């Protein structure tokens, strides 16, 4: 399952990435890494982009970007 499918209010742990690119490198530098716990806070109108919380801050990213992030331990 990827972050794009995680429901609003759910938490999960990052398990990996679908690809490696400057985009995913930037995502990693922002702290979205394997074993990072994150939570979907809300979705913008039309469900995209999404706002997630990690490491004590809020980050927005698009569904297409969220779909590159694989998750485990969904709560």
């Amino acid at each position, binding site marked *: 399952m990827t972050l794009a499918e995680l429901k609003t209010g759910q938490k999960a742990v990052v398990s990996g990435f679908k690809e490696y690119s*400057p985009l995913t*490198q*930037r995502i990693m*530098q922002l702290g979205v*890494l394997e074993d990072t716990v994150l939570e979907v*806070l*809300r979705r913008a109108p039309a469900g995209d*982009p999404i706002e997630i919380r990690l490491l004590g801050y809020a980050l927005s990213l698009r569904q297409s970007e969220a779909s590159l992030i694989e998750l485990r331990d969904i709560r």
Partner: protein
Amino acid sequence: MNIAASGDRPQAQKHGHGPTPVIAVIGNPNIGKSTLFNQLTGLRQKIANFPGVTVEKHVGTVTLTSGDANIVDLPGTYSLSANSPDEMIVADVLYGQVEDTEIPDMVLVVVDASTLRRNLFLVSQVIEAGLPTVVALNMVDVAEANGINIDVERLGAELGVRVIPVNAARGQGIDAVKGAMVDALQQPHLSSLNVLPDVRKASAELARELRDAGNHVEDYEVERALVDAGGYAEQRLQRACTTDIIPQLEAVRERLSPDRPLGASEAHRRYAWINALADEVETSAVKTGVSLTERLDAVVSHPLAGSVLFVLVMAIVFQSVFAWATPLMDSIDAVAGALSDRLNASLPEGALTSLLVDGVIAGVGSVVIFLPQILILFAFIIVLEDSGYMARAAFMMDRVMRACGLSGTSFVPMLSSFACAVPGIMATRIIPNRRDRIATILAAPFMTCSARLPVYALLISAFVPQQTYLAGIINLQGMVLFGLYLLGIVGGVTTAWLFKRTALRGPTPSFLMELPPYRLPNLKSLLIRLWERARIFLVRAGTVIFSVAVIIWALVYFPHPQSIQDEFDMKREIAALKYDGEVLAQRLNDLDNQQAAAYLEQSYLGRIGKTIEPIFRPLGWDWKVSSAVVASFPAREVVIAVMGTIYAVGGEVDEESAGLRKRITAATWPDGSKVFTLPMVIGLLVFYAFCLQCVATVAAIGRETDSWRWPVIAWVYMTALGYAGAFLVVQLGSAG
């Protein structure tokens, strides 16, 4: 922790310092970095550009006990990786590779204590750059409110640098930061921190190899190129080298990190180090309750409530721009009028008096009068930005922006363009995708900039009735202004969509953006930035607009033939023989007006206007309007100054109608019909909404797209659109 020897910079070129030391300020976006910078410098700062790229460079002076130091505020960034030339500037400054900016004597890293881990990523990269470093730990109060306590002493010891807790917004800890700066300047100390010693070593080796092969490269450039596969540093290194270096880079990456890409490896190793460090220095209590940001976001980022709020906020902003500015504008007008009267009364009639009164005071005064509106608009933009609302607007607008092929990141440059397209176009550097950048650049000049505001304000206040609805809450003039803003937005969005569908086709880019917590904007910082904007506007009014006002005055005043004076003197004598009393006074007054009009028709500007009048005739413009519009192609707000000059010099002498708006209302065609009819005025407004009348913007487009093609395309496209729009309005208005 890591004690691997490093920190010395054999490759960095020390430029050799003058007596004034240089301090660089660096940090993540949205953490109060600019507020701290403003606290350190006060008004002793200015905005310039970094050479080669068009990133805004804020430089200031800070007074330390050891003397003055120059301080450079670098753009906010999360890492030293670069996907664009804009992002590369931070690393280049730290390594002394930017012309005009000496290698810093020390670096001040600003850190948000409430998001320590994410901030430490950049901190570790900056410390490894090998310059004396001081960390300013900002927002300790916010962290504590969130239940986070940080052992400052321990953090400093682990990083090997001084860590000073500050509250930039309240101005607390500023003296301690200054003290640490003095220490770092007088007894430079380098941290031995090195999270990735193997990468550092391999980069130095590869750089030596490349230099031995005759290439001019720096160690840090190679290190960034190695780590950021496919990034900007790699492309730049390839351009700097004569041979294909990608295979070499790939081989080193493979050797350093066989299991995963080196860039991923860097992120993982740094965060592993960060987490170990943070676990030692940070204690967080279990937080109870819902934070203010979360409660506000339940409304602000709500799909329906948030959208309604957004429209409401924008409407309030534009209503206020009109309503609050009026008393201030009236007093500026009164001062200019009094000054003109004094000069007219005390100086002899002639070219010099005319230059001062009709050229300088009328021209510059009619532009300066719009300063209150510009300041109010800027104050709103700054407050929306600093409070964190702007990021929410981008979040809410992303889906909409994508409909025209752009992203929410284009929203901020577009919104900045409401103040001025030049910084807006410069702000497009945050958009990594070139096609998106160009589309945003083409859309940006459509946004209603502060220079369009005077034109709108003048025409609206002169020709749109002062009606209010709903007990005075809605004001018709304000609504017309709001409509013009919407027209600009529609024009820009349609343009971006059109170009993204045709010349700039390509995949949609990323949208990674932090949504910072809501904060109260800092008043001192707000005032400093407002002052900076006011200064830029006034300097522009004092230079470009002053020069154009004088040139236009000369075009209007000269050749001023004596024959006209003689002809009208004779007519006055005849009138004096024929009439007397009030009839004579009226007759003489008419003759004065006719004489002024005769001079104007004979003038150089009159001749230019008449030559081009046929082109603008279908838009309902006479030669006066045509001249004013043509003269305003270098800078659109000049049209007010030109009209001011044209109508003052050709002035219908009437003590009651001193203002320009009254003079243009009275302007007529030779047959006596009004020039400024409602369709013509709306057409003129549409023309100004679309047309690209700004040399600075054209130049910025050229620089940012690095070509002459795009500015030419933009200019022709926008001018044609303006003409077509005005033509359509006038034809429809006349038919109806």
